[in-house]
C-alpha cells in the first residue's frame, strides 16, 4: 500500500510540474506588453484541454508502469515548447530573449526524436538510438549558433544580433536546406527505429507501441508541413496553413493520446492477478496451468520450467527436457518456502519494464498450482525417461538381431557351404564312397537351409537393403494363405521400418496360426508425419490383446516407438490389427 501511495505521489508531482510549466507559459503570454500573434497558443481553452490530456497521459503511465521513465522526456519536451514564449518577456535589451528564442527554437524537434527512440520505456535500447538522439540535439542547437553568425541582415531572425560576423544570404540558404535535410533524416530514421522496436517487442510491448506507430508519423507530417509553410510559402498560404486549427488539434493530441492508449492497453495485467487468484481457486486441471498464467500475464509466449527429477537441468510441463531458453527472454525464479527452486517463468522481457511487480505477483498467487504442476511434470519426465529407455532397448534388440544375422551369414553358412563343396570335390576322387558323401552333402544342405531360415527370421536383409515393402512382399511369398500387400515403395527411418516389419510379421504369423483365415491383407501408408498400417484377415476373430502375449508384445513394441496400436477382432468378423508410428 505504501508503495502504491509513493507511485501516486510521484505521478501527481510530475503532473503538477507539467501544469506549472504551462501556467508559467500562459502567465508570460498574459502579462506580456507585446502583441501575441501565435495563433493557437493564445487559445487558452485549447491549451488547458491539451495540457490536461498530457497530464492524464503521464499520470496514468506512471501509475501503471512505475518503472517507466518516459515522463522525463515528456517533461523536457513540454519545457522546450513552453520556453519559446520567453520571447515575450519584457527584458531589455530585448535581443536577449530573442537570442534565447532563436537558439532553442528547434530543440522540440530533437526532443521529439528522443521521445520516439526512447518510447515506451524512456530509455534508449542501444547505442545507435542514443547516438541519433544526441546528434539531433547537437544539430538543432549547433546549427542555430552558426546561423546567428551568418544572418544576412538585421532583424532577418533576430533584431540587434551581436554575433552577425559574416552576413551572407547564399550561405544562409544553403545551410538551411542542409540542416532541414539532416533533421528530416533523423526524424525518418527514428520512425523506422520505432517500427523496428515494435517488431522486436513481445506481444505486450507491441500493444503499447502500436498507437505510437500511428501517432508519430501523423504528428511529424503535420508539424513539418506547417514548419515548411512558415519557411517557404508566402503570407497567404502561411495564414491558410495556420488557420487549419483542426489540423493543429490533431497534431497536438496525437502524441499524448498515443501514450495514454498505450499505457492503458499494456497495463491491464495487474488487475488480472486478482482474476488469476479466483481462477486458480476454482481449480485448474494439471497440465493446463501454462495458458492460464499466460493469459493473466498477457504473454502468450510464457514458458514454464521445473527442475528435472534428477536435478540436472529443467523440464517443461510435459516433462520434456527444456532447451536453453532463447536469448532475449526474462526468467523469473519462483522458490518454495525452503528456498528450493519451484519453477521458472520464462517470459517476455517487456513485462519487467511495464510492470515489475506483475511476474512476482503471478508467481506467488500460483505457487500451489505450480507445485502440483511441478510434481506432474516430474512424473511425466520420469515416464519420458522410461519410454526413451524402452525405445533404446528395442533399437538395441534390432541391432543385435542384425548382428546375429550377419554372424550366421559370415560364419556358419559360409563354412557349411565350403564344407559341402569339399565333400563333393572329394567324391570325385573316392567313387567307392560316393553314396555316403552324397547323403552327407544332402544333410549338410538341409542344415544350410535351416540356418538360412533362422537367419532370415532373425533379421530380413531385404528390409535394410530395399525397404519395408520388399521385405513384406518376400514374407507374403512364403505365407500359407494369400496375402495382399499394399505398401508404397520408398524408405522410412530404419527404426520405423524395423518396428513396422516385426509387428506386421508377427501379426501375419498370428493370422496363419490362429485366425483360420482364407486370406490376409497388409497395408501401410504415410499420412503426414505418421506411418499408418493395418494387417487384416477374414478369419474367426475374437482375438483379445489383453490375453494373448503375442498381441501384447506387438502393442509394447509400437508403444516403445510412441505409436498407437489397436486390435479390432469381433467374434466371427476377422481381425484387424492397426497401428500408427510417428516418423519423426
Amino acid at each position, binding site marked *: 500500500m505504501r508503495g502504491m501511495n509513493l507511485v501516486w505521489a510521484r505521478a501527481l508531482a510530475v503532473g503538477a510540474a507539467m501544469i506549472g510549466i504551462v501556467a508559467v507559459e500562459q502567465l508570460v503570454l498574459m502579462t506580456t506588453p507585446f502583441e501575441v500573434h501565435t495563433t493557437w497558443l493564445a487559445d487558452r481553452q485549447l491549451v488547458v484541454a491539451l495540457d490536461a490530456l498530457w497530464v492524464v497521459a503521464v499520470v496514468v503511465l506512471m501509475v501503471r508502469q512505475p518503472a517507466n521513465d518516459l515522463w522525463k522526456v515528456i517533461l523536457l519536451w513540454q519545457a522546450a515548447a513552453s520556453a519559446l514564449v520567453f520571447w515575450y518577456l519584457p527584458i531589455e535589451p530585448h535581443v536577449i530573449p530573442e537570442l534565447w528564442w532563436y537558439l532553442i527554437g528547434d530543440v522540440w524537434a530533437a526532443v521529439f526524436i528522443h521521445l520516439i527512440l526512447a518510447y515506451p520505456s524512456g530509455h534508449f535500447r542501444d547505442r545507435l538510438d542514443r547516438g541519433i538522439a544526441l546528434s539531433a540535439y547537437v544539430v538543432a542547437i549547433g546549427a542555430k549558433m552558426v546561423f546567428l553568425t551568418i544572418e544576412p541582415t538585421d532583424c532577418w531572425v533576430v533584431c540587434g544580433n551581436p554575433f552577425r560576423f559574416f552576413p551572407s544570404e547564399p550561405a544562409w540558404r544553403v545551410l538551411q536546406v542542409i540542416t532541414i535535410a539532416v533533421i528530416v533524416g533523423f526524424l525518418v530514421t527514428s520512425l523506422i527505429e520505432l517500427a523496428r522496436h515494435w517488431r522486436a517487442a513481445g506481444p505486450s510491448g507491441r500493444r503499447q507501441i502500436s498507437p505510437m506507430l500511428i501517432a508519430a508519423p501523423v504528428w511529424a507530417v503535420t508539424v513539418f508541413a506547417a514548419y515548411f509553410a512558415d519557411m517557404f510559402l508566402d503570407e497567404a498560404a502561411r495564414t491558410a496553413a495556420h488557420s487549419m486549427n483542426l489540423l493543429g488539434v490533431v497534431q497536438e493530441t496525437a502524441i499524448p493520446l498515443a501514450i495514454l492508449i498505450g499505457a492503458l492497453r499494456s497495463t491491464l495485467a495487474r488487475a488480472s492477478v486478482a482474476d488469476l487468484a479466483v481462477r486458480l481457486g476454482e481449480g485448474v486441471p494439471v497440465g493446463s496451468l501454462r495458458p492460464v498464467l499466460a493469459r493473466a500475464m498477457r504473454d502468450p509466449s510464457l514458458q514454464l520450467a521445473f527442475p528435472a527429477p534428477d536435478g540436472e537441468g529443467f523440464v517443461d510441463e510435459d516433462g520434456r527436457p527444456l532447451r536453453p531458453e532463447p536469448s532475449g527472454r526474462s526468467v523469473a525464479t519462483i522458490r518454495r518456502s525452503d528456498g528450493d527452486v519451484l519453477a521458472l517463468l520464462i517470459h517476455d522481457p517487456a513485462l519487467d519494464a511495464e510492470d515489475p511487480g506483475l511476474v512476482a505477483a503471478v508467481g506467488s498467487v500460483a505457487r500451489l498450482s505450480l507445485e502440483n504442476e511441478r510434481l506432474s511434470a516430474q512424473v511425466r519426465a520420469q515416464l519420458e525417461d522410461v519410454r526413451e529407455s524402452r525405445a533404446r532397448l528395442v533399437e538395441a534388440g534390432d541391432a543385435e538381431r542384425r548382428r546375429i544375422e550377419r554372424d550366421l551369414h559370415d560364419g556358419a553358412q559360409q563354412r557349411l*557351404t565350403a564344407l559341402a563343396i569339399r565333400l563333393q570335390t572329394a567324391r570325385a576322387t573316392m567313387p567307392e564312397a560316393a553314396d555316403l558323401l552324397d547323403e552327407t552333402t544332402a544333410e549338410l544342405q538341409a542344415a544350410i537351409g535351416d540356418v538360412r531360415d533362422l537367419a532370415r527370421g532373425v533379421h530380413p*536383409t*531385404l528390409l535394410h537393403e530395399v525397404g519395408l515393402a520388399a521385405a513384406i512382399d518376400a514374407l507374403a511369398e512364403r505365407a500359407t494363405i494369400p496375402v495382399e500387400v499394399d505398401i508404397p515403395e520408398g524408405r522410412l527411418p530404419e527404426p520405423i521400418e524395423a518396428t513396422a516389419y516385426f509387428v506386421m510379421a508377427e501379426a501375419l504369423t498370428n493370422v496363419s496360426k490362429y485366425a483360420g483365415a482364407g486370406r490376409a491383407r497388409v497395408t501401410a501408408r504415410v499420412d503426414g508425419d505418421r506411418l499408418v498400417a493395418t494387417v487384416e484377415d477374414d478369419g474367426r476373430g475374437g482375438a483379445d490383446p489383453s490375453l494373448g502375449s503375442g498381441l501384447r508384445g506387438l502393442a509394447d513394441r509400437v508403444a516403445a516407438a510412441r505409436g498407437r496400436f489397436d486390435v479390432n477382432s469381433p467374434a466371427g468378423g476377422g481381425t484387424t490389427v492397426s497401428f500408427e508410428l510417428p516418423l519423426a
Partner: protein
Amino acid sequence: VTDVADRPVRVALADDAVLLREALAAALAAAGFEVVGQAGDGPGLERLVERHAPDVVVVDVRMPPTHTTEGLETARALRAARPTIGILVLSQYVETRHAIDLLRDDPTGIGYLLKDRVVRVEDIADAVRRVAAGGSVIDPEVVARLLGRPRKQSPLDELTPREREILGLMAEGRSNAGIARALVLDPKTVEGHVSQVFAKLGLEPGTADNRRVLAVLEYLRAG
C-alpha cells in the same frame, strides 16, 4: 568345358568369404573352367575384369564395405561397361525382388542363384555355361516360391501339371531346347506346351527366350 571357339570358359570370382571362394574356385577348375582370378570385393572384381576380360564373373551379393547389395551394384556396373560379359550372382538368400531387378535392364547372360547351389558342381557348371552362352538362370527356389505362393483364383489353376512344370523351367531361364533336354521330351512337344501356357496365362506369345524369363517372373509375382 569349352565354348564355341573351343577354349575353356574363363571365369573370375568375387566373394569376401575366402574359404568358400577357394572351394568354389577349386570346384570350377576341376569342372574344366579356367579361373582367371579371385577378388574380395566389387572394385577388386572390376580390376580383374579389366585385366583378364573373363567370359563370366561369379559374384556374391554381399561384400564389403556395407555387406548389403554390393554384388548387385558391381554386376550392374560391369554389365554397363561390357554388354557381353556373363554375370552369375550368388546369394545366401534369393529374393524375387532382386531377381527381377537384375533381369529388368538386360536379361542376357544373367544368373541369380542360391549360394549353396555351388555344392553340386554340375549345377553351378551348368549355370556358368548357360550364362556364358547369353542365357538367363534363375534359382529354382525363387521359382518354386513364386509357383507355390498361395493365391486366390488364378489362370495358373488351369495349367496341367506338365504345363506347370514347363512354366517353372521357363521361369528358371531354360530355353525350349533346355526344357526338352531336362524333361526328356521332343522339342516340338515342348513348343506346343509353351504356347499353350502362354495362351492360358494371357502372355504375349513369341516372346524371345531371354525376355521370356522376365515376363514369366513378373507374371508370377503380380499373381
